[in-house]
């Protein structure tokens, strides 16, 4: 769908579905390539959305990813139904992880995900409620002068 203020696409994520994990980020990357967005921005968006997608697959029961592209920015919003994050400050520290052995065997759960999303984005917001879920809002500006 293409509203006047930009392009919006929504994706559903199924918790525990490792076979499809990453496919949403690949799709977002392909859309950005088609539109002709700068490759360095595409790479940052792809890395951040893949980390967010993996987190949802690993930790949540289910969730949604909204991808919004307008003339100024790219916005990735995620919301999941899951355990939530007890201590967000801790979760934002590199190396802190509550991953299970299974997640580590997948090559993930090193405690790099959330800090890496923040590192690659221009704006990063996280809210979480124990027993309910976690929401991320990740913004990338198309032109650096639009950075707030």
């Amino acid at each position, binding site marked *: 769908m293409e509203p006047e203020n930009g392009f919006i696409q929504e994706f559903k994520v199924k918790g525990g579905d490792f076979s499809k994990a*990453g496919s949403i980020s690949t799709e977002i990357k392909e859309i950005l390539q088609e539109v002709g967005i700068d490759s360095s921005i595409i790479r940052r968006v792809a890395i951040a959305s893949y980390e967010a997608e993996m987190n949802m697959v690993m930790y949540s029961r289910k969730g949604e990813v909204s991808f919004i592209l307008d003339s100024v920015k790219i916005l990735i919003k995620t919301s999941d139904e899951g355990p939530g994050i007890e201590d967000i400050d801790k979760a934002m520290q590199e190396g802190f992880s509550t991953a299970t052995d299974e997640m580590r065997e997948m090559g*993930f759960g*090193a405690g790099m995900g959330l800090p890496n999303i923040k590192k690659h984005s221009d704006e990063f917001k996280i809210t979480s409620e124990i027993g309910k879920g976690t929401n991320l809002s990740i913004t990338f500006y198309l032109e650096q002068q639009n950075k707030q």
Partner: protein
Amino acid sequence: MKLREIVNLLDAEIMSGAENMDEEIKLAGASDLMSDVLAFGQPGLILLTGLTNPQSVRTADIIEAKAIVYVRGKKPDADGIALAQKKKIPILSTQFMMFKACGILYRNGITGVSDPKDKS
């Protein structure tokens, strides 16, 4: 160095992407931990890994790696190969252990990605 030279140096089997052996490779990164590949990877690198699940291919695609070398004789599963073919990422498999494979490439002029401290 061309990818085909890496195939020779590592005595590797080409699992997919045989048509891309003229790809020029300058940079390598090695890890079984995809979290760290995502955090420290640089575009254009060749990824050496022992992790054979589809996430290794997905990660390589996301960071814009030029190729993947599976070490220790490992090979990706059918899903991984299918994804690599779709994303046009060449896949090699070498019998060498990670350290030896990295050492051979380094000795032949392939450099590593920046250390975390080097990054601003």
